């Protein structure tokens, strides 16, 4: 960790520890906006850190690992990506939460400066006023009247808002210059990688803690080898996930980003499943209750590993590139990776 990393991590850890709890998580799942939490994040400037020139991007995105660790119910990921896009377009960023929407050709704005249509799976859509619309052909727009949409509230398996927004009347759409849809998609995938890495580590920590506290047969279950062996296996997955996530984050300004995202989304997604499974097994029935905090992480892991390309989708892209290069180039690719081809990876 760099000093900037750990400074951000400490600040965030404090804010999130103070503001994220069960009541808050359930309230957000029931449709409430986490006002205090968001305001605290906005006040530190962390929510808009990718838009400032003073913090390197890789440090700005580092905060998402902490978001994952605490299962914080805020659209920080989308806001950070939006901040970078606005910065690149040379546009101001208002201190508001932002959304991201990926659309295909059929849904693209017909008029140059307005949008009408339906957007699906919008993180925290019901609470948004601003959103970046990302078209498969590379164009991006800023929608500044998102609150004019009719909201069909939807939640994912983790209870996070993933809403359907219906714009039956035209709303203003301001084009953003200088964007690449592939990059925006990769950044969005990176946010999930980092959030997953944080949540994965948190699941292991909770499981170790629980194993030390829970007594059966007259001793803490941590004393049982079967439990030790499972948690050790889980720790290996955690290290791999953290390593892959960190490598992807540090590649945020590199031409290798496609390769690193593919590796990380695939590897971290796989670790998410394994660590969650072991975490539940160690927790026994209590972990299966709504009362317990474990599921707030686990359900997010299940949601995030599917968002922005699940493991197999990224594995396929990586595999396709490697196979096209041929068997004799495999080792060269492993030791000196090249940017893989992202065409046809689009939601």
């Amino acid at each position, binding site marked *: *960790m760099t000093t900037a990393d750990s400074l951000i991590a400490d600040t965030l850890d404090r804010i999130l520890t103070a503001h994220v709890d069960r009541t808050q998580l359930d309230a957000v799942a029931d449709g409430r906006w986490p006002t205090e939490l968001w305001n605290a994040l906005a006040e530190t400037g962390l929510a808009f850190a990718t838009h400032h020139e003073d913090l390197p991007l890789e440090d700005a995105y580092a905060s998402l690992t902490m978001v994952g660790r605490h299962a914080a119910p805020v659209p920080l990921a989308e806001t950070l990506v939006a901040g970078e896009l606005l910065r690149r377009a040379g546009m101001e960023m208002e201190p508001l939460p932002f959304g991201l929407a990926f659309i295909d050709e059929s849904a693209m704005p017909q008029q140059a400066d307005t949008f009408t249509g339906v957007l699906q799976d919008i993180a925290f859509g019901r609470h948004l006023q601003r959103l970046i619309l990302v078209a498969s052909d590379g164009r991006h727009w800023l929608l500044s009247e998102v609150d004019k949409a009719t909201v069909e509230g939807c939640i994912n398996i983790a209870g996070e808002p993933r809403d359907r927004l219906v714009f039956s009347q035209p709303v203003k759409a301001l084009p953003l210059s200088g964007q690449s849809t592939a990059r925006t998609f990769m950044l969005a995938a990176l946010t999930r990688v980092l959030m997953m890495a944080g949540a994965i*580590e948190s699941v*292991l*920590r909770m499981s*170790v803690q629980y*194993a*030390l506290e829970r007594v059966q047969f007259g001793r803490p279950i*941590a*004393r049982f*080898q079967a*439990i*030790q*062996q499972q*948690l*050790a*296996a889980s*720790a*290996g*997955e*955690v*290290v*791999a996930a*953290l*390593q*892959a996530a*960190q*490598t992807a984050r*540090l590649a945020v300004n590199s031409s290798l980003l496609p390769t690193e995202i*593919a*590796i990380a989304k*695939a*590897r971290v997604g*796989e670790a998410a499943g394994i660590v969650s499974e072991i975490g539940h097994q160690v927790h026994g029935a209590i972990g299966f209750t709504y009362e317990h905090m474990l599921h707030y992480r686990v359900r997010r892991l299940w949601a995030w590993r599917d968002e922005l390309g699940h*493991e*197999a989708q*990224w*594995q*396929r*892209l*990586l*595999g*396709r590139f*490697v*196979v*096209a290069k*041929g*068997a004799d180039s*495999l*080792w060269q*690719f*492993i*030791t*000196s*990776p090249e940017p893989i081809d992202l065409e046809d990876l689009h939601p």
Partner: protein
Amino acid sequence: MFPDLAWPSASLPAEAGLLRKEVRAFLQQVLPAGYRPNSDFGSGGDAAFSRQLGQQGWIGMTWPKKYGGHERSFFERYVVTEELLAAGAPVGHHWIADRQSGPLLLKFGTEKQRATYLPGIAAGEIFFSIGMSEPDSGSDLASIRSLARPVEAGYLLNGRKLWTSGADHNHYMIALVRTEPGSERHAGLSQVILDLKAEGLSVRPIRSMTGQYHFNEVVFEDVFIPQEQLVGKPGNGWHQVTSELGYERSGPERFLSTFRVLVELVGCASEAHSDRMLILIGRLVAHLMTLRRMSISVAAMLEAGNNPVIEAALVKELGNNFEKTIPELARLALEGRASGQMQATLEDALLHMPSFTIRGGTREILRGIIARSLGLR
């Protein structure tokens, strides 16, 4: 305290790229073209190849020049070892001496021992075995019973070692033995250098399930060990043995043992690929690249002078499982279309696979070490 599982990311320095080119050019020249079997450091040696490697300066790379070493970094050594393994080179003979015995002598050996053995090891001419396991002592290494009884000017050794890789063709063995009669467990153990041709020492090759002979039983009947063959302090054997685990367990040999299967699989996929095959290859590549980064991160810890025992256990545990995954999944993805070379590599890998999670510390023992670091035991 919960351990920090976020390891610093490390990458190989720029000068490593140049070295890599040299190694590749060399291997292209000396290895047969085309098909090569898996490179398993535990088998498949070639004394002539080891000598050539020594001439290139690629054994004992990190050691001081005065002992025949080359004073290069752990990263450079890393590049050479991974290139050798990926290419399927016959590294079996010098591997242990280069990885373990040499560094052990550097750290704990006497000046005379260093001067006697290290130049020969670095030249690729002297090969070492590790004598730890015994018939009744595998994972529970502290239970070993081979006894070197102190006598005039040395020790008299009786007992036996088992599963000693390469003892049938290597020159020496560094054995862990009990030098204090009546001592128990970790106390009273010492490391000694044994000449594998010494009087009273007999080597019986044991055929493995692969059909080959790579490990042995070594029996000691009143083998005289001159005092000067003691490595380090008497009674310090346990500490010395465990101090090398970072080297022993974190290297690329812990996840590249079936790499040639992946190479062949990519070759097959170029001819006829299904989505299933592409997804599998992508998955394995994502695992491999992540493991390699973990392993390089540990190399950086070694370079910095640390002793990353837990980290090494994590690399080996994850790496061994990965090595076992490749052939298991490849055979299914091939849907019965394995060609001659693909099939040969696959069978070779399958036959060796059971040993990956046993040699160098079993999966269960490694997980025990990791569990302890998590505070579970």
